[in-house]
């Protein structure tokens, strides 16, 4: 075990080398787990984005509905993830599914909130002039309001992605897969050879996946945002 308290520098170096060995000896397995993790995340985020943006557009100017939608999605985020995962088991059984339903609920608020604030931030004068030029409601939305709100919406999507990646690591506790499997297998074999290497792998690759997805979304945000809005 690596103990901060009684280890020396050499122990750390040894630890890092053995971790690299560990990774080098099973790159395909790790990539597979990472891909499984990414698949859970991306599915959840795509669905949550479509759902939350549509919902956001619908509730933005309806004060009562808007408050209701924001409050309810806030409640989801308050419920501890293991508890929310567990609550889905009686309904959909174990595996990735309960985790994905729960993660979907978590991912709503950041995107929903940023969609409504993003739409709020569109200057009324711009919408007014679009209307004045004869744009219909849908066209205003597609050509003016959503593009102007897009950077803020994307920021919400990125937050949701990061938290989904992090929380998806406990899917393994309800029978799912992904990088959490490395953490769990390390825990069950704690003290045995390679157990900590396994935990480190699960933790580090989860963070890494989060950073990669975030960078990819940042790039996507750049190319999908009008040049006039980039600063």
């Amino acid at each position, binding site marked *: 075990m690596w103990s901060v308290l009684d280890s020396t520098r050499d122990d750390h170096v040894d630890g890092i080398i053995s971790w690299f060995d560990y990774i080098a000896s099973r790159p395909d397995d790790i990539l597979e787990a990472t891909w499984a993790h990414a698949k859970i995340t991306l599915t959840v985020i795509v669905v949550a984005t479509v759902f939350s943006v549509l919902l956001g557009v619908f509730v933005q100017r309806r004060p009562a509905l808007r408050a209701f939608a924001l409050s309810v999605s806030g409640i989801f985020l308050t419920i*501890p993830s293991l508890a929310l995962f567990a609550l889905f088991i009686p309904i959909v059984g174990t595996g990735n599914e309960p985790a994905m339903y729960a993660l979907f609920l978590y991912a709503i608020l950041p995107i929903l909130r940023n969609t409504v604030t993003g739409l709020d931030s569109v200057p009324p004068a711009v919408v007014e002039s679009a209307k004045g030029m004869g744009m219909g409601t849908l066209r205003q939305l597609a050509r003016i309001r959503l593009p102007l709100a897009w950077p803020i919406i994307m920021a919400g999507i990125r937050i949701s992605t990061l938290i989904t990646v992090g929380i998806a690591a*406990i899917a393994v506790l309800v029978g799912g897969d992904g990088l959490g499997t490395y953490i*769990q297998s390390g825990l069950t074999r704690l003290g045995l050879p390679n157990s900590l290497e396994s935990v480190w792998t699960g933790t580090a690759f989860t963070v890494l996946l*989060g950073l990669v997805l975030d960078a990819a979304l940042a790039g996507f945000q750049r190319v999908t945002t009008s040049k006039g809005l980039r600063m």
Partner: protein
Amino acid sequence: MSQLTPAQARLGDHGTTTDGREPEGSLPPDLEAPHEPGWLTRARRKHLGLKTAPLGILGLAGLVFWYYQSLNLAESKVQIASPLAWGTKLWPQTVEHLTIAFWSTVLVVVVAIPLGIALTRPPLRRFGPTIVAVANSGQALPAYGLLILFLSMLGQGLRTVVVALVLYALLPVLRNTMVGLDAVERSVIEAGRGMGMTRWQVLTRIELPLAVPVILAGVRVAMILNIGMATLAYLIGGGGLGVTIAVGLKLQQDAVLVIGASIVAIVALTFDWLGALAETYLRPKGV
């Protein structure tokens, strides 16, 4: 994993309140009104406020209680009756759960607020943005892994759980302290300095009171993160209500699972509501 992380997400980059309310504008109403469409003003006013929340929570608690009664534990099989015993299992676990959350929240406050203050003072100020950026990507950190790594370093027990939780929940309070202090208008600070207030006086009489709402929002998020992460404490022998959920998973008893998860949810929602109350009543007047 974290139970904690979700709450963190509520601190987006567009606001600091955590209950779906938008942050209120800083302009006085009469100045703001002309620029703001009516529906936005109405939306701000009309949040599902502090008043309805306790009703919802009570309703949920009543429902769980009714379900619990209907299980008729005295006559049910041991796989259900034993983990759901109130006096020997559920209640002590709840107390354990709250103890973990309480101490880690207190420690977070004690560590993160002074740190946040230090990082907004001139000598350290330039590190602020970097730290906030790191804090943001820290959201992808799996609490599960973190907990196990601390287990390997510090061994089993409450202390390990609390240390891991503090590290995990530090970020929102730290970030909000920095953001809250940074958001204090330069002109207000300039006016204070111009009247001969010392830096310390400006900090304690102006900056901190004005940052209170934002800092409190961060503390509330940290508290919810801690309550969530305490659910995982069972993984490293820290107890808490996670034990009941884990037993339900292992024995494949949905009733145990549902009761355990529901109590955790009720605890989290209750404390979130208390946090909202604190945010409302501790906010300085005039702000």
